[in-house]
């Protein structure tokens, strides 16, 4: 086989997947595995110039062929140009799909160096990306030719980092294949761990004598069970709710729950069929949905919650009944959404080793410090004995906030005193991991004759699955956000998280808010129509403004850019509506429509402390190091925080060395969730940078305006060399001020909020119920765009996930457990996106910035449903709006 131009001999079974050969035998781990089934395209390489899924090619069929992988691109001028284009356009976020994208594009560019968008879509149609929303990938491929002899990237100068469209600081390894994800490295002698998962939603089991199994499979080292867990056999997000067992103790509560794990030589554990295990099942009736779980007399999933209600979140202000009774117009409705899978392209993976009396876990994660606490707990060792080293993370979206491989490999490595690695298969990733909560919502709202909202009532039942996970957070966040970003004098909301025998629902971009927004925004459309107001103007009329009090009683004094967002959209709203009207006047089976929806999103934890600490040091020999414990899961915190700290210190980003998220080397930055890293860690980075700058200025006895420079290891202050005897350091810590909510949901749960409004323009096929998206226009108030390119990337990626939520995605246990049946948007499913960034500065945030990660997703689905309503009058109440459901809605 010729690999990247070099002849390679491989000794492996002829039927071995080419992807495995490249990764394991040849060490070319830049080729990724996301599904082993041809569904994700992460393993795309060129075989004799043609793009193929390396996971579907037997080694025998590649024999004598020429293989090009990501590692071979830089040596080709076109390959190098394409890599530069990806960096410059922000086309790689987590980077996990990037090698596949690059290779698929190479096939096209070889024959069409300046391709049209449509050709790019066809060529890249077989590679899934969950992060970017594809638009920047298309731009990069189309522009690749112009990077053929482009100079290397110029990084912003001192003081010019904030606001710059700087390429990702961690971008290079993502385009050259060098990035190390959870499955990409482990000690050579690591054992392989494979969990055995319950095929039943609810069952008791006993595991019999495993001696015959060991005898049959000499490479099997250990069958790990509940009895092997040295510490607490339980984990969970909340310190007082450790309800999910590492290995179930005789009772499983969902399909995918962990029964035990096989540890041994890889070939041995993979050769074992589950049927060989001495497991005796007693299948129990399962509570399939919250209706069953709430029914009188329903058995309790956990003794601790006898009524299966995990938590109830509430909001109450004013007198809703009177307000609605006196309203000129009242609208109501009921909605139902399904489970949504995170579908990060990188399945959960990592490895662990025991180092004396310490354990070291390298894994793909969003929350190293939470992993540290869990691992310490299950091993029964002090937290100081645990080191978590996050690997690169191939997408998280909330799903990698919960532990997956971590406790299992930690237990195995601890007990066996051998390094142990694990990589989930796609099927098991989907079956075992957390999901977006399915919601059943009923809501009612009223406005006065002028269209001003007077009251709102919301009841949400969220299926939280078999274990608590983030269920309480969702139930807490939903009522606070249930009114949407509007003035609402009277409101009553309740959200309950209900336990069922379904996969645990956890954190997924938006924590339950996107589901609520679907209900809420549908009501505004109906009320606007009833009041005879334009749907966008209705929202302008009712939008929160600076100084307004929210329904939780919080007065938001700053950074409420919603009206600005809507006003920025207004011209496009009018044009797009006029276009749709013209198209509809021509008649035909396609009905065109434009929809609008808004959102707000509290940045950071709900009414709870969530601090972050950042540190920057300058050593006497001039080494400037930014110690950043925030995990970049593709969203860009490594770059954004660097931009912040650089401008705070007053030195160019290029001068900084990075030490990233290793719990032994960096301070706790909190988890990468709740859209908090830019705001919370960003502020901490600002403080750290300013502190270092102060220390330097003090040392140099210089004034606040002094210009700093580092030249050949020498620190210059206003051109004057300053010798340092000892290292200088700046530490910044920030914990956003909040006031916990009381029993009525009154309080100041978040220090700041993101605001946004989006338009969706689409056409509905009235015979088939299919929806063709034409355009999304997104206006987001981000406070300050530290890196506008990365902000756009978040918005576009969020929109793509919103499209999936609206039109495609529904996880059904046992039925859509792969990326063949569970459909996420492909490159052809995300329309043109116009971004409008509104910057209403948040004084608490770094340079005025707040978060963007989750806000991007929230308004998309409601805007799409608003557009379907506009086009056809159909009310989408069952989500996702699959074609048959749209058709049904058209007829009711």
């Amino acid at each position, binding site marked *: 086989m010729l690999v990247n131009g070099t002849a390679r001999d491989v000794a492996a*079974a*002829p*039927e071995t*997947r080419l992807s495995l050969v490249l990764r394991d035998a040849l060490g070319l781990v830049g080729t990724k595995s996301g*599904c*082993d*089934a*041809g*569904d994700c*395209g992460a393993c795309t390489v060129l075989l004799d110039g*043609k*793009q193929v*899924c390396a996971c*579907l*090619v*037997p080694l*025998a*069929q590649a024999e004598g062929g020429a293989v090009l992988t990501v590692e071979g691109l830089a040596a080709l001028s076109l390959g190098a140009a394409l890599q530069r284009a990806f960096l410059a356009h922000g086309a790689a976020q987590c980077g996990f799909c990037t090698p596949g994208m690059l290779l698929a594009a190479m*096939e096209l560019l070889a024959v069409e160096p300046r391709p049209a968008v449509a050709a790019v*879509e*066809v*060529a890249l*149609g*077989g590679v*899934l990306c969950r992060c970017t929303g594809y638009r920047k990938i298309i731009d990069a491929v189309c522009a690749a030719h112009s990077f053929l002899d482009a100079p290397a990237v110029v990084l912003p100068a001192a003081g010019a980092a904030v606001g710059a469209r700087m390429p990702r600081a961690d971008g290079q390894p993502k385009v050259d294949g060098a990035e190390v994800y959870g499955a990409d490295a482990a000690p050579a002698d690591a054992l392989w761990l*494979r969990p*055995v*998962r319950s*095929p039943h939603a609810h069952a008791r089991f006993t595991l019999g004598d495993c001696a015959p199994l060991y005898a049959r499979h000499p490479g099997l080292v250990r069958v790990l069970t509940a009895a092997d867990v040295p510490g607490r056999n339980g984990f969970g997000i909340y310190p007082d709710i450790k309800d999910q067992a590492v290995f179930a103790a005789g009772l499983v509560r969902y399909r995918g729950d962990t029964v035990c794990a096989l540890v041994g030589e890889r070939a041995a554990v*993979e050769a074992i*069929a*589950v*049927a060989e295990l001495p497991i005796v099942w007693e299948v129990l009736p399962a509570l399939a949905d919250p209706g069953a779980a709430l029914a009188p007399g329903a058995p309790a999933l956990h003794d601790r919650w006898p009524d299966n209600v995990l938590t109830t979140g509430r909001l109450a202000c004013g007198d809703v009944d009177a307000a609605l009774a006196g309203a000129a117009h009242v609208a109501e409705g009921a909605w139902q959404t399904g489970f949504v899978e995170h579908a990060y392209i990188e399945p959960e993976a990592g490895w662990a080793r025991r180092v004396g009396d310490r354990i070291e876990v390298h894994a793909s994660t969003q929350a190293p410090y939470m992993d540290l606490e869990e691992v310490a707990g299950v091993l029964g060792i002090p937290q100081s004995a645990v080191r978590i080293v996050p690997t690169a993370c191939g997408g998280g979206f909330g799903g990698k906030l919960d532990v997956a491989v971590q406790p299992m490999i930690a237990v195995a490595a601890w007990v066996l005193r051998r390094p142990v690695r694990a990589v989930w*298969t*796609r*099927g*098991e990733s989907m*079956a075992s991991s957390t999901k977006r909560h399915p919601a059943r919502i009923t809501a009612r709202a009223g406005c006065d004759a002028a269209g001003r909202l007077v009251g709102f009532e919301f009841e949400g039942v969220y299926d939280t699955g078999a274990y608590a996970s983030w269920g309480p957070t969702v139930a807490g966040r939903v009522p606070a956000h249930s009114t949407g970003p509007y003035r609402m004098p009277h409101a009553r909301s309740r959200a309950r998280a209900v336990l069922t025998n379904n996969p645990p629902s956890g954190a997924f971009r938006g924590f339950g808010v996107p589901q609520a927004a679907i209900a809420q925004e549908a009501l505004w459309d109906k009320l606007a129509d009833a009041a005879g107001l334009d749907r966008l103007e209705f929202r302008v009329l009712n939008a929160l403004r600076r100084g307004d009090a929210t329904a939780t009683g919080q007065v938001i004094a700053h950074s409420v850019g919603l009206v600005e967002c809507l006003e920025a959209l207004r011209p496009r709203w009018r044009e797009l509506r006029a276009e749709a009207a013209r198209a509809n006047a021509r008649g035909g089976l396609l009905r065109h429509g434009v929809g609008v929806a808004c959102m707000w999103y509290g940045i950071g934890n709900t009414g709870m402390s969530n601090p972050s600490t950042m540190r920057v040091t300058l050593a006497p020999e001039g080494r400037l190091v930014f110690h950043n414990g925030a995990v970049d899961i593709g969203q860009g915190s490594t770059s954004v925080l660097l931009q912040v700290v650089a401008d705070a210190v007053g030195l160019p980003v290029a001068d900084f060395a990075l030490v990233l998220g290793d719990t032994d080397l960096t301070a706790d930055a909190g988890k990468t969730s709740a859209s908090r890293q830019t705001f919370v860690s960003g502020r901490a980075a600002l403080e750290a940078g300013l502190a270092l700058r102060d220390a330097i200025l003090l040392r140099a006895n210089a004034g606040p305006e002094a210009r700093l420079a580092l030249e050949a290891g020498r620190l210059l202050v206003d051109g004057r060399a300053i010798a340092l005897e000892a290292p200088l350091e700046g530490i910044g810590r920030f914990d956003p001020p909040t006031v916990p909510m009381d029993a009525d949901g009154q309080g100041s749960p978040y220090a700041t909020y993101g605001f946004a409004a989006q338009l969706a323009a689409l056409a509905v096929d009235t*015979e*088939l*119920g299919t929806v063709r998206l034409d355009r999304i226009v997104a206006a987001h108030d981000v406070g300050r765009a530290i890196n506008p390119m990365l902000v756009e990337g978040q918005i576009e990626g969020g929109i793509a996930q919103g499209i999936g939520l609206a*039109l*495609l995605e*529904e996880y*059904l246990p046992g*039925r*859509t457990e*792969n990326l*063949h*049946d569970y*459909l996420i*948007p*492909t*490159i*052809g*499913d995300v329309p043109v996106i116009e971004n409008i960034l509104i910057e209403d500065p948040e004084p608490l945030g770094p340079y005025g910035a707040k978060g963007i990660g989750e806000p991007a997703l929230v308004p998309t689905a409601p805007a799409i449903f608003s557009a379907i309503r506009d086009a056809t009058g159909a009310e989408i109440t069952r989500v996702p709006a*699959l*074609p*048959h459901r749209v*058709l049904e809605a058209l007829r009711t």
Partner: protein
Amino acid sequence: MTAYHRPGTLAEALALLAAAPAPPLLLAGGTDVYPARAGAAAWGRAPDARAVLDLSAIAGLASIEDRGDHHRIGAGVTWAGLRDAALPAWFDGLRAAAGKVGGAQVQNRGTLLGNLCNASPAADGVPPLLALDATVELAGVRGVRRLSLGAFILGNRRTALAADELAVALLVPKASAEAVAGFEKLGARAYLVISIVMVAAVLEAPGGRIARARLAVGACSEVAQRLPALEAALEGVAPAEAAQVVQPAHLAGLAPIGDVRATADYRQEAAVVLLRRLLARLAAPLRVAA
């Protein structure tokens, strides 16, 4: 390690097959075989221990040949090969289907014959080939036999292939020079999508009237089906009127199922819509020709 053979000639392959102690796993492009393995691995089902007979190196199977009264499509022909081939217009439906299977990677590797042998109810190759009256050629040491596609695919994942046989080619009889053909696929997303419903048609309308209409619907029954009642009703009709002829009753023989992709009723109804649209679309060039 299981045995793996990759013969270079058909005779060798057939001999291996005849001599095999147990039926081996036949492997072409692997785009159905390997995903099935991944599915099995995810739930710890016993790994496939069958010996593998890899058909991809067999000489002479990778071409599409004009054989006078028919075209012969070899078992090695991939979707991409078919999609990019210069073929008469009656192949337009089949070629359109080729461009809609999976994504570019699957089209580069997956074979048309593999699609038929895998016999999924949603196999995109089946309706266009039914509409072309294609025949499958099977070879074994006992000899060669030819089965109409309808007789070859027996049900969901069931074919008439005997344990000692390989499918070696498809034979597609020629249609008249002015024949037109098309394919419509309805899926929930743009790429990499299994059909909710797909329809294919080959129309011959010399002199402005339909002389022969061949139509098939997939994913609405265990095996894709031709629509004889509708075909009969279309005979003698002007192409421009063809779409109006389609009535739900013409599809009464279908038995779609409801699944994660769509309800049964929806499939039945969408098939009617797709047929009408396909006929309307095909009428355009016919009208010009007439």
